[in-house]
């Protein structure tokens, strides 16, 4: 009885579904191109996923905090942090820590402005963070004159791509560490419990002595902070920056969070799901690339189409809204 119940619960658990889908995609990819199954390829895929995963940390927090919470400016925060860092580092290890702090600080400013706009001026989060994209893009142009300068400190590059054991680059360990911290934050801290409560029912949280505004504000700042960290990792990985470095992460981070079972209504989900979601998205686009769908005369188009369709199918498996009729 209990085992069937648990089994049923498992088959409905978004994290499990996403995990299974990811494995399926990976098996298909391995059949298609055996190289996919190689250790090196797995590590590369995970490395690519780690950037999305780290940037989506904050997205997870903001979405859990509810109130239509969403942060579309994570990509911009990542870009800004990378651009600032590269300029301060300028290819040298001198003042490394300072550069990192300045970069993360500038990313946090975005979160602070988002928080003020959403909480004080009551701008819907979607619109506020959309608008911030334009502002940050404008600022980057002003700051760089359109041509970002500098490059990553060798130390950062070392941290991110440096080989540790079994060819695992440093960035994966960093991702692992951050994941542990975030999951702990959500499950075993007063902040985490309050965050869920605020997301599930803000009035209840307020009337239970929680300050919902403070919680939501923290979520937005943390979101930009983690996006900034993601930007630094991207910088360390690619060593150079360009002005739309983080643009792709805007909606992909939302997709990763939702695939991981965190509903946009807030108050449900967790970061474990987001990890799986990030890996799923990465494996999917790697698979489409390996299958060489697109390329040649068709360009990028078929891959985009398939990516969208698969995403819909995956989301249909769960993540659906309640039916109006019970």
């Amino acid at each position: 009885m209990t085992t069937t119940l648990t089994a049923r619960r498992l088959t409905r658990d978004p994290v499990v579904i996403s995990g299974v889908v990811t494995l399926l995609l990976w098996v298909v990819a391995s059949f298609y191109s055996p190289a996919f199954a190689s250790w090196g390829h797995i590590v590369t895929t995970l490395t690519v996923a780690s950037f999305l995963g780290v940037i989506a940390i904050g997205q997870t927090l903001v979405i859990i905090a509810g109130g239509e919470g969403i942060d579309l400016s994570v990509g911009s925060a990542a870009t800004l942090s990378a651009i600032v860092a590269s300029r301060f580092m300028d290819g040298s290890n001198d003042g490394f820590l300072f550069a990192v702090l300045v970069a993360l600080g500038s990313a946090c400013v975005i979160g602070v402005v988002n928080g003020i706009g959403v909480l004080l001026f009551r701008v819907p989060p979607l619109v506020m963070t959309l608008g911030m994209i334009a502002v940050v893009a404008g600022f980057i142009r002003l700051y760089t004159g359109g041509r970002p300068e500098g490059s990553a400190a060798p130390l950062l590059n070392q941290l991110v791509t440096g080989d540790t054991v079994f060819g695992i680059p440093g960035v994966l360990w960093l991702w692992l560490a951050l994941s542990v911290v975030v999951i702990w934050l959500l499950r075993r801290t007063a902040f985490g419990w309050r965050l869920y409560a605020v997301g599930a029912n803000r009035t209840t949280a307020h009337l239970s002595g929680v300050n919902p505004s403070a919680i939501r504000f923290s979520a937005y700042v943390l979101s930009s902070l983690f996006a900034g960290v993601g930007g630094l990792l991207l910088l360390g990985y690619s060593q150079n920056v360009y002005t739309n470095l983080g643009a792709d992460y805007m909606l992909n981070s939302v997709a990763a969070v939702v695939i991981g079972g965190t509903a946009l209504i807030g108050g449900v989900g967790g970061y474990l799901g987001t990890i799986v979601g990030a890996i799923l998205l990465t494996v999917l686009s790697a698979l489409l690339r390996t299958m060489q769908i697109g390329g040649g005369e068709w360009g990028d188009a078929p891959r985009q189409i398939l990516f969208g369709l698969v995403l819909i199918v995956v989301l249909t498996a769960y993540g659906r809204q309640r039916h109006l009729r019970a």
Partner: protein
Amino acid sequence: MNLLRGTGTQDLPGPVRSVMSVHMPALAVGLLLLVTVTASAILQPGFFSPYGLSASFATFLPLATIAAAQTIIVLGGGIDLSIGTIVTLSSAVSVVLMQGDDARLPLALAAGLATGAACGLFNGLVVAVLRLQPIVATFATSSVFGGLALLVLPSPGGQVSPILTGTYRMVLAMYVPIPAVLLVVLFLSWRMMRGTRYGQHLYAVGGNAEAAYTSAVPVSRVRVLSYTLGGMVASLAGVALLADAGAGDPTLGTELTLGSIAALVIGGTRLRGGSGGVGGALVGAVVLSLIQGLVFFAGVPTNAREFVYGCVIIAAIALAGLLTAREGSASGASGGRR
């Protein structure tokens, strides 16, 4: 009577409060329009000349039309992040069929319209029947539509029929450019639709879907139709873009989506649905376009333009938000009470 009334509950009589809350957003966006128009008239030479008006309205119309499309969807409680790609896909289909030939214009327009409607229908089915969350679902479909657009028209180009571009530039009675007429037609069609039962149901579904359902409003059908209509109107924006630019461009998707959402929010439509209207969104789009022009004409250094533009937009949105925000402001006990 007084005894039962529970007096002292409302400082203002109900009707007065209702009127105020309904007209507040309109007031806000009207004010913005006044400010931007005045500033444009001062800073922009020849703003009120026939040529200036024609040029202005030619740039207003595409954004205004997309904003109208997005508003129809948002009013019904949805959102469409794929709307920009619907515009590009439908315009790509049109321009490829048009081949710069006036004779093929009707066919091309019909095909573009059908494409838009089909995309919208697809979105609607995904959201209303599969019940996916609109933000993510339309993100996924935007990938599909964007890909299709690239298939149809791999790179910017194509030949728009001369009649289309010619008509678009025409100015009637000295001061009335065709795009302005189209803008008015768009608004009147909206008012017409608002007057139907469907218009009412759209607001009901966006305002409170469960209440609408228990009141025998066909909620799913209303939603699907709102996305379909939105897609269709979006394809009209595609036509306007073609007419304005003279060629197709498969890459402008996302920017249009963002603009449409900003315009409707400035226009006083509630992003959660059920409140607002296309009229406000049209004005919001005009304001947005004017601000863009203003930043250019105000002599802002090139590199700072985007930044200033972004900041002004945020400020406008915040202003609109402040004036529109009615609910959610009361915190605590009274706030949670329905």
